[in-house]
């Protein structure tokens, strides 16, 4: 029996899309967990940052897209600064957010923001939120 392995078969389409959008090689990650160890909001995430990139490595992008973690990443770049393999994980998170919103629309529609909070938040928070949670 002849078995042929083609790169297209080994690299699922969605994984390739995440890699292209983020400019990152997700297979470079060797799962040391340093990103999760230093993440300042790991405590409220449903999946740890290294688990999200593991799902993408395995081609289970659909599961990564349903994780709350991609919305909890504030792009503080602590993980990117410390990754021994040079993976810029916040770029992967942003690619996943874009993919999720391309399918489902705005994650947080602006008209759902409470008026009293809008009066209190710094403009920078509102604009930053729009950039990350709307499509």
């Amino acid at each position, binding site marked *: 029996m002849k078995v042929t392995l083609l790169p297209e078969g080994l690299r699922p389409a969605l994984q390739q899309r995440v890699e*292209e*959008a*983020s*400019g990152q090689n997700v297979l470079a990650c060797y799962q040391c967990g340093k990103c999760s160890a230093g993440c*300042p*909001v790991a*405590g*409220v995430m449903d999946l740890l940052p290294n688990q999200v990139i593991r799902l993408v490595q395995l081609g289970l992008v659909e599961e990564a897209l349903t994780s709350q973690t991609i*919305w*909890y990443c*504030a*792009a*503080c*770049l*602590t993980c*990117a*600064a410390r990754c021994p393999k040079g993976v*810029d994980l*916040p*770029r992967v*998170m*942003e*690619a996943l957010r*874009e993919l999720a919103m391309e399918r489902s629309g705005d*994650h*947080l529609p602006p008209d759902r*923001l409470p008026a009293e*909070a809008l009066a*209190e*938040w*710094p*403009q*920078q*928070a*509102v*604009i*930053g*939120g729009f*950039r*990350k*949670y709307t499509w």
Partner: protein
Amino acid sequence: MQNMEALPYFPGCTLKQRAAGFDRSARDVFSALGSPLAELPGWNCCGATFPLTVENLLDLTGPARILVSARAEGTRLAVACAACYNVLRRTNHLLRTDAEKREKVCLFIESEYDGDLEVVHILELLHREIGCGHVRQALRRPLEGLRVAAYYGCLLLRPAAEVGFDDPESPVLLDELLAAAGAAPVSYPHRGECCGGYLAVRSEEAALEASKRVLMAISAAGAEVVVTSCPLCQYNLDRRQAAIARQEAGFRPVPVLYFTQLLGLALGADGAGYRLDEHHVDPRPLLKERGLVEG
């Protein structure tokens, strides 16, 4: 760097609204040191966050337009807000190093730009050019051992290769500047970690998780006041203290100021327009006790 020409300065949208006290105090500091800031004419919003996906060129057009305007005014642009600094500096770096993207963005905004501009943060200007020695000489009300926690946050430090002007894991510039003003900066961990950023827009719980870690360390170090150079850090660290005080019996609230507010007062400014009454943890009792504002 005394009595030089006014330096082109980008305030950004937050410094015109919620953080007007930061804008006013930054201008005070530079005027007191003989290098006044001149607001860039016709500026627009920088976008608040740097786009992280490769093909998102649209979000670069806003900051690129600012860089083009600034280049018409000179070869340097001073920025106070850490977020604006981060976005403008990263955009400038990208336009300088990626010819293909530069061409596309320039075509879109119908402008010529070659990246020949330096985006500088005011902390770097104060420390490296004006100098701690000059600050020390210009003091009118030295901070006299005030125990200050210098908080750097993310945006001045990362990514170090593009924005960093200080040690990314162990920054010192803000501490040294405050020490020059007579303060006694306290040593504490998490000074370069995230306050929660814009996460509060979606989840207060997440913002609290991040800012609490920083504030507990600051409180444990015995700081009397925290200073920052980012309106979002100021907001998160200031606003979350009521919730932390409810959760942690031993937590002692500590006022959060922009570093220019403290420095401006030390350099003799009267604090007019600093909007100290808008801070959640009232800094005025401490500032009065220290003789930095009129009682």
